[in-house]
């Protein structure tokens, strides 16, 4: 007999399941709108030019493969902090922060979660927006924290339930942990406006909450890195010492290279040193030290003026293409004769769109039109092209008219 007879089969990953089914489909018009990765207008993965150039620089330098420090590549972590906080940020200039390299967004979130479990004694409750990225819950749970929720998405309007959010947040026990998506909320694409962010910042400060920002789409949402980081920077300016997770998977297309960072804004540089020492103690028994390749590519791009400029243009290009697909989808739906209000498609931002489609309608899209998405009606706009947006609009109209 086996040690593992009692081990249950883990449930299949819902998003992967979509891709699996898509692969099996033989319909030539099939569309995969489940995948959370950018595609160009031909539906192909896109390797950024600035990434290729950075790789050429790396190849020419013939560097060794010695272990990185536990906290990662210093040029990368410093540049990541500057990218998120802004070069004029008081917190950045004073050095009252620590940034460690993490395994893309997930790994960075997990470092933070483990750190909170060990050192945040006031509370082990993490408040997530309803809904949030599916992996947030298991990450925090595996780190030993409890999950709570605050209202966020209003399915009736397909936009932000701001009064519901403010109401719920006003009742969160003091010194709890609240997670906020810095921009391009996943899965809804619904972000607060700046005036709303201001009110949220005042409320979390009033409730004395520890703010955990998840920023996986800086630059990728509006096309402007400063605009996308506005909320993070505003919260810090207002006196919230936030913690932050960053990912370079989408905005630099470095998905499989796992480049990310975790930051803690501290009272001063001395506190930051102590926090760093504890983060290293957490990281060492997880994977010892982080992988170099992705971080080095990102570092070269961020720290080389020409490449940085080129990157900003390319990330804006990706964001613009997505915005353009949103616009085209709405106009195509109008052309199809749909009488529904599809404004939320262009109001929402980032890779994902909560269409408002019901499970039965999603089912029909999959079965009758070979258009694949998750049951909650979320589509990855990155999977839409000028070549298939008409077909998508037609199909959506058919199942909603």
């Amino acid at each position: 007999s086996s040690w593992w007879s009692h081990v249950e089969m883990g449930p299949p990953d819902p998003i992967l399941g979509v891709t699996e089914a898509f692969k099996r489909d033989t319909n030539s018009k099939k569309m995969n709108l489940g995948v959370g990765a950018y595609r160009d207008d031909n539906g192909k993965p896109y390797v950024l030019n600035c990434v290729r150039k950075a790789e050429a620089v790396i190849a020419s330098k013939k560097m060794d493969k010695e272990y990185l420090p536990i906290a990662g590549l210093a040029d990368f972590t410093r540049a990541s902090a500057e990218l998120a906080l802004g070069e004029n940020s008081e917190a950045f200039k004073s050095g009252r922060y620590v940034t460690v390299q993490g395994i893309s967004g997930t790994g960075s979130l997990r470092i933070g979660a483990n750190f909170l479990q060990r050192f945040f004694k006031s509370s082990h409750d993490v408040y997530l927006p309803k809904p949030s990225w599916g992996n947030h819950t298991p990450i925090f749970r595996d780190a030993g924290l409890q999950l709570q929720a605050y209202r966020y998405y209003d399915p009736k309007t397909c936009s932000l339930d701001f009064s519901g959010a403010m109401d719920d947040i006003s009742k969160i026990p003091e010194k709890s942990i609240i997670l906020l998506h810095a921009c391009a909320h996943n899965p809804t694409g619904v972000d607060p406006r700046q005036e709303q962010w201001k009110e949220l910042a005042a409320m979390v400060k009033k409730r004395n909450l520890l703010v955990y920002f998840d920023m996986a789409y800086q630059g990728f949402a509006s096309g402007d890195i400063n605009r996308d980081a506005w909320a993070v920077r505003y919260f810090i300016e207002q006196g919230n010492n936030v913690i932050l997770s960053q990912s370079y998977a989408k905005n630099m297309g470095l998905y499989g290279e796992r480049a990310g960072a975790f930051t803690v804004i501290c009272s001063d540089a001395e506190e930051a040193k102590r926090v760093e020492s504890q983060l290293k103690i957490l990281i060492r028994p997880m994977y010892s030290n982080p992988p170099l390749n992705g971080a080095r590519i990102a570092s070269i791009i961020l720290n080389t003026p020409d490449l940085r400029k080129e990157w900003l243009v390319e990330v804006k290009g990706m964001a613009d293409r997505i915005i353009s697909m949103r616009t085209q989808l709405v106009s195509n739906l109008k052309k199809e004769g749909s009488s529904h209000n599809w404004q939320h498609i262009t109001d929402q931002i980032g890779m994902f769109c909560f269409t408002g489609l019901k499970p039965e309608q999603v089912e029909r899209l999959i079965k009758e039109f070979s258009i694949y998405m998750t049951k909650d009606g979320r589509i990855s706009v990155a999977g839409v092209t000028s070549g298939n947006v008409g077909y998508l609009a037609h199909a959506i109209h058919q199942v909603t008219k």
Partner: protein
Amino acid sequence: RVSLLLAAYRTDEGKPWVLPVVKKVEQMIANDNSLNHEYLPILGLPEFRANASRISLGDDSPAIKENRIGSVQSLGGTGALRIGAEFLRRWYNGNNNTATPVYISAPSWENHNSVFVDAGFKDIRTYHYWDAAKRGLDLQGLLDDMEKAPEFSIFILHACAHNPTGTDPTPDQWKQIAAVMKRRFLFPFFDSAYQGFASGSLDKDAWAVRYFVSEGFELFCAQSFSKNFGLYNERVGNLTVVGKDADNVQRVLSQMEKIVRTTWSNPPSQGARIVATTLSSPQLFAEWKDNVKTMAGRILLMRSELRSRLESLGTPGTWNHITEQIGMFSFTGLNPKQVEYMIKEKHIYLMASGRINMCGLTTKNLDYVAKSIHEAVTK
């Protein structure tokens, strides 16, 4: 100034060494425009996983033939150990049984303890391993500890080139160890960070793991390609699961996937591609084995050169352990005072335990190191 501290290979010029086969494969990858940076599957690059496990278990492994192995690409050997530890804490010996004893050799790599503590285990113990008096394996102490260990205890075993002592059980001793473990229902978790690097032969260095598989054990083996591929900073590792049958292994992997998903989601691509490309090409594989022999050979040479110098100098004590020990490290047997002398007076840096990294020795510094050891022992 000589550093015998760091745990990485160095050439005779004291420099890091990017393996020629790695340079070649990196160039191939750089020139391949069909490649992109898309996510790997959660469990990793399929060609990497299969080849990595095959290297460990052997081409003719009965477990592979019977389709009862699984692999999880991990962030280095540490990552593989952690995923294995997290899984064991959740699913081994009941559900979430944090009380299952975990036995780690005395001494061992210092991070082993932290891996299992952070994975949630509450009862971490040591098993006798190093006999300081005879400078060798304390086999009897080890076997006694296994006899006394509660049933189902987990034992962390170094597959070869024990870190830090460089002292491995002989095949005969491994057989004795396996017999006790089988009888006492103890779980073998192998840490294999130096395959090929220890003796120069991949197969010889994998003998213990393969023997346990042939004896019908279900086991885990955490592999690192940091040293034998010199891919330290790319974090290339693999956790091999050997089970009773395919169905059990499948369920285990499905649960490991969930653990991976909340730890790093999916593993880094670059290092796995390099290893997979190398292992799946007969020509590149042969080149790699050659590169590995180069590294192992230099270490073996430094061992014999150091020993012969100490014996020529007439340094008190016996020094055969230096050539009998295997792998990157040697437990010299120097005591703390002697170690302090080496560091303070001779600027030769080594661990307080007396552990030296053989890779820090070069033809240029051998004389100085040998003389310094002589002084430390005689003064």
